[in-house]
């Protein structure tokens, strides 16, 4: 095992048997499948190597979006429409300041307060601040603050609750075009991005490191993660694009930057992934990574296994090129075995079955999320379009008003015709202004609504990664089966050769053959042990991830719906207020709309 192996020496310093540990955890985590959301955490979850890793869930959602509803500015709906629900948390407006969104937070808090104050006299409840921690008790997410919340009144940044959530904060900015030459000596253009990190994580401490990275480096980091952390859900990376990069379209850059930021934040908020050496190098090491020796070593590990698509099956999480030959040989074996394994319908234990069922659930979830995303997109598009229509109405009314004014100017204000014309002109103008204001409201409504629903999109894209993580385990199991089959075959051979020898063969050749076979058997057994250990590890990680995914999903969706309703409540209330004002201006006096017993109190307490 290489020194860079994040798993450390197997069994070093660990007095407990890893399998016993796993049993304990399995007993806990099966709660996942009976729909019971109150998952009991083991007192001190211990990972395979005895280090007390806190298996808590990060405060952010699964891929570390700290739900920045970057609601400043009103970017065009085209962005939403074309990019699905694009990563709206960095909605183009280069919010170079750390994304506190205090104003937005306050705005939303006010909205919710208004809504609630109008409807009940209970003490004001603040929505939980996004950036602040919540006590993740069994009931998961709290919308109701427990008394005066510690999250209020403070800047909104680290709220004094140390550790966990806001440990590593990452921003990506300032895409810069670079010109250079590639390996073939050809001129190339590429972009670099500024990566800024602030972190209190023990192994990765910095007050503000800034480095420049290009897409290929992100890509390498991603591959390294996938290799070293099999079984964990690795945040997805956008695809490499050759053509678009050349065109350097502004939209492309904005989306790319958002995606990359999301990727890094996902890693930074993952309790296991963020401990990685590769991440540390990536975030802190100045200069180009390709010249950094430690990075080069890491690159080699992925270099070997990317040769085949089924590749890297036997690479231990540490990976080394020494085994790549064995890998190649084994791959073909595995594909052969796979056929025979599936055809022999091997009995899977209960855990395996449940995990495979979980995979199916993930797939279902992905489909459902896609449906949701699509219908959300349509809804937001309609809101935007409603805004446009209101604009047109306003413009039309404005023209009507002008026309009436023209008449008035011609005939004079004090003629009968002029008098009524000026009245009509005034009325049309009122409506024109009202429509224009409503238009602004609805345009921003569509953007804010899309932003509030971004969690749907985030989970939608993480689902395939979850499936991939689960499939890592399955592949590992296949490997084990392949090796076992191979071993059985070799044992048989060995027995045959130590028994009655072939007529005419000399003792030496027999011995030689036995010797080779024994070596092979030994080597296979070694590999089998590694595989089995890997399997245990990956399975444990899978279970952890499923639990974490479920919890964060619950929390995030609950939060999402809260935001969604708050956004709409706020906007519609604003719309209602505007209309009411307009109506009053028409009447020229305070008007109580019919049926609305208290003009302003449209939201009545239901008693």
């Amino acid at each position, binding site marked *: 095992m290489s020194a860079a192996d994040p798993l450390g020496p197997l069994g070093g310093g660990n007095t407990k048997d890893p399998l016993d540990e796993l049993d304990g955890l399995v007993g806990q985590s099966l709660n996942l499948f009976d*729909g019971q959301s*109150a998952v009991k955490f083991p007192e001190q979850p211990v990972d395979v190597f005895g280090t007390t890793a806190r298996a808590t869930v990060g405060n952010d959602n699964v891929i570390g979006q700290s739900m920045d509803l970057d609601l400043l500015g009103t970017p065009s709906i085209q962005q939403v429409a074309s990019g699905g629900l694009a990563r709206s948390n960095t909605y183009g407006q280069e919010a170079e300041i750390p994304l506190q969104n205090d104003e937005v937070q306050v705005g939303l808090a006010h909205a*919710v307060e208004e809504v*609630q104050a109008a409807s009940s006299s209970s003490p004001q409840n603040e929505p939980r601040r996004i950036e602040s921690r919540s006590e993740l*008790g069994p*009931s*998961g997410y*709290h*919308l109701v603050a427990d008394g005066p919340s510690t999250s209020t009144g403070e800047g909104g940044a680290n709220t004094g609750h140390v550790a966990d959530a806001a440990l590593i904060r990452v921003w990506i900015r300032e895409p810069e075009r670079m010109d250079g030459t590639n390996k073939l000596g050809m001129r190339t253009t590429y972009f670099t991005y500024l990566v800024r990190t602030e972190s209190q994580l023990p192994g990765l401490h910095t007050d503000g490191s800034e480095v420049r990275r290009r897409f290929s480096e992100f890509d390498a980091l991603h591959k390294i993660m996938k290799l070293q952390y099999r079984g964990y859900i690795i945040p997805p990376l956008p695809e490499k694009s050759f053509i678009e990069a050349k065109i350097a379209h502004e939209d492309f850059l904005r989306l790319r930057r958002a995606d990359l930021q999301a990727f890094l934040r996902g890693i930074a908020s993952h309790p296991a992934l963020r401990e990685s050496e590769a991440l540390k190098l990536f975030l802190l090491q100045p200069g180009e990574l390709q010249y950094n020796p430690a990075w080069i070593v890491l690159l080699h590990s992925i270099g070997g296994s990317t040769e085949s698509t089924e590749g890297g099956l036997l690479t231990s999480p540490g990976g080394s090129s020494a085994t790549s030959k064995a890998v190649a040989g084994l791959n073909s074996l595995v594909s052969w075995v796979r056929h025979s394994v599936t055809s022999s319908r091997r009995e899977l234990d209960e855990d395996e079955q449940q995990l495979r069922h979980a995979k199916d*659930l993930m797939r*279902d979830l992905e489909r459902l*999320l896609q449906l*949701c995303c*699509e*219908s959300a997109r*349509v*809804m937001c*598009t*309609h809101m935007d379009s*409603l805004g446009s*229509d209101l604009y047109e*109405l306003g413009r*039309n009314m404005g023209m*009507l008003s002008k026309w009436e004014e023209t*008449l008035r100017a*011609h*005939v004079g204000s004090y003629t*009968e*015709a002029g*008098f*009524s*014309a000026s*009245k*009509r002109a005034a009325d*049309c103008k009122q*409506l024109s202004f009202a429509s224009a204001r409503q238009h602004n409201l609805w345009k921003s409504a569509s953007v804010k609504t899309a932003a509030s629903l971004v969690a749907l999109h985030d989970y939608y894209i993480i689902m395939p990664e979850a499936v991939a993580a689960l499939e890592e385990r399955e592949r590992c199991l296949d490997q084990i089966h392949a090796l076992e089959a191979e071993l059985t075959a070799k044992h048989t051979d060995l027995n045959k050769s130590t028994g009655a020898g072939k007529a005419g063969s000399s003792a030496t050749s027999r011995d030689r053959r036995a010797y080779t076979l024994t070596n092979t058997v030994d080597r296979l057994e070694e590999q089998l042990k590694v595989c089995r250990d890997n399997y245990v590890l990956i399975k444990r990680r899978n279970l952890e991830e499923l639990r974490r995914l479920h919890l964060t999903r*619950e929390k995030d969706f*609950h939060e999402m*719906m*809260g935001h*969604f*309703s708050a956004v*709409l*409540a706020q906007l*519609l*209330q604003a*719309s*209602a*207020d*505007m*209309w*009411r004002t307009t*109506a009053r201006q*028409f009447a020229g006096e305070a*008007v109580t709309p*019919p*049926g609305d017993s208290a003009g302003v109190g*449209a*939201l*009545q307490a239901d008693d």
Partner: protein
Amino acid sequence: MDPPPYESVLQDHGSNNFFSPVTAVSKEFEIEVADPVKQGESVAAYVSYKVRTKTTHVKYHAPFNEVTRRFRDFAWLHDKLVEKNKGHIVPPLPEKSAVQKYQMATDFIEQRRRALQVFVNRVASHPVLKDSSELETFLQANEEHWMLEIAKWQAETSAQHRPVSAAAQWFKNLQHSAQSLVSGRADEMQEDAEYIKIRDYINSLEGHLTEAHRQAGRLLRKEADLGAALTEFASAAELLGKQDNEGPMRVAFGCLYTRANEVAALSRMRSEAIAVEFAAPLKEFARTIKSVQVAMADRASALSAYSQAKSDLDSKKVRLAKFRGTPGLKEDKIAETERDVNEADQRLRNAKLGYETIRDTMREELNRFQKERAAEMSAVLRDFALAQAHSTAEQAKGWGELLRDLQQAAVGGS
């Protein structure tokens, strides 16, 4: 409770005094057009309506009346009034769309019913038209009497050419102007300046109002679309929630589903209301402009007749003078010419009277029209704003309820 429908906003102005506050006076007529019933088969099919009148008008022999009428009958009323009341702005008839009528969709029938009710009530609150015998016949005549009237009218219209349309009238005017241009008459009759400005204003207004109506239509369709999209989203969200078996996500998404559907229903209702309260009145205003244009065309042709009569008289006078000045001309020739002059003079006086009558009528009518329209437009816009306020407030409330639901679920779900 919905804001009052715009037809009830019709107000009795009566007076000339444009500074008088516009107040609703107790109406002389309250007419209801109701109970549409399909009659007949396929191509000959039509819809009949019950027309119920409640009136305090002296000429009517009973305070309550009920008759059965169809669209064609309303058209009779309209055309007769136009014919007999030159210079007056006769309320417009709803459209005679042939295609839609054939389809006879429920929406269309309801729209038409409402429009017919507005039409007949407007006639009944018009200071001049309300006293007309045509209205009386329309509202009271029994089947027999009515069929006679209709038959007579149909015979008339097939025999004569149709009343000249505004466009044709304008063309005639143009011809006359061209003529006078050629003959170099300097004493061409002129319209008064204020009227010309108003006339130009009216002509452009129709376009604006039609556009406003189209916009209103787009708006209401968009509201409906939004409601539908929200429903879709709610369904998708519910499916997503069901994945969670009996867990809190299912509950939360279930709440979303319920509330979102409530809001969507509000959106739909809003859309339908906009059609009735905002779009339809704008359409009617636009059509009324056309009625005004008809009156303006009548005025123009009266003016042109007046003008022609004048130039005719002038030319005859010239001829008489010439003859008188010619020695040796036969006496009876001169007498004949003198008679011509007298006739022409008489015709001129008639034409002048005709024009001046229309002119004075129109002045009053235009004032009334402007004042009425200002008040009604104001009311329509205000009601629109009020109804929007009401609906959006309700929707906001719905979302607030969802927020509360979610809170309760979070607290109670442990």
